[in-house]
């Protein structure tokens, strides 16, 4: 995806197991405006399926997912 965006906020969710990553990210995304993007770092392998499921249900959009060693980086646009 070559879409350009600016990250408004970075959330460190490393070391947190289920359900904390989605609970925190759902709170954190409400702290930015609709249309803005946050970057969330998780080390919970379950996040790879959980974040997209969370985004679909809550109506937000995952623009990009990157894996950097054990760290999974999600770029999420607040659309709801």
């Amino acid at each position, binding site marked *: 995806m070559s879409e350009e965006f600016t990250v408004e906020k970075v959330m460190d969710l490393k*070391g*947190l*197991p*289920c*359900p*904390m990553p*989605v*609970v925190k*990210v*759902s*709170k954190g995304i409400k702290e930015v405006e609709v249309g803005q993007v946050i970057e969330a770092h998780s080390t919970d392998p379950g996040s790879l399926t959980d974040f997209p*499921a*969370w985004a679909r*249900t*809550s*109506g937000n959009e995952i623009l990009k997912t990157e894996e950097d060693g054990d760290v999974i980086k999600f770029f999420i646009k607040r659309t*709801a």
Partner: protein
Amino acid sequence: MTSIVQEAKETVSNSEEKEPLTMENVEKQLAELKSRIEVLDKKSTDPKVSMIVFSGDLDKVLASFVIATGSVAMGMEVVMFFTFWGTPVLRDKNKSVGGKDTMGKMFGKMLPKGTGAVKLSQMNMGGMGTAMMKSLMKKKNVASLEQMLEMAEELDVKIYVCEMSMDLMGFKREEMIDYNGLEFCGVAKFLEEANNSRIQLFI
């Protein structure tokens, strides 16, 4: 649900009966459909999860709170009903009340007093298993039951306690935890909530 769909289909097919395709007819059909959709909207359920927490086991109560907090994250409303063995989990370990009869005192002594005293449903091994699980949870950063309860309160998870279980086991309202919005209820309240929920769980 099938009957609702059928009703809706009938309404649509009825309104299509051999009427000439004039602007007026189309408008009439549209109005009918709109009112029909309004009725369906009212009948549809909210994005809500209703849970019965029947178990008083550490593992099952923990799972209940994981689902509860996760549901709020997903944008859903959550209502938890604590009944039977789940009831003592919500007792406050620092509160004690007098005026109980012998049976009430006995139940009070034998059942866990609050989140800190609940045991695993399996591998408890006289408390050793539970202690090991708790230390493992801490090591792996898994939220404790106390933290889960705190988080649930922060996320506006609604908690109801079964009045009948309280009465049966001799628990008094004054010995329950301070939880914002904690209420006492009977089966009708659960059924009302469950009826309006998309997800209903019995744990």
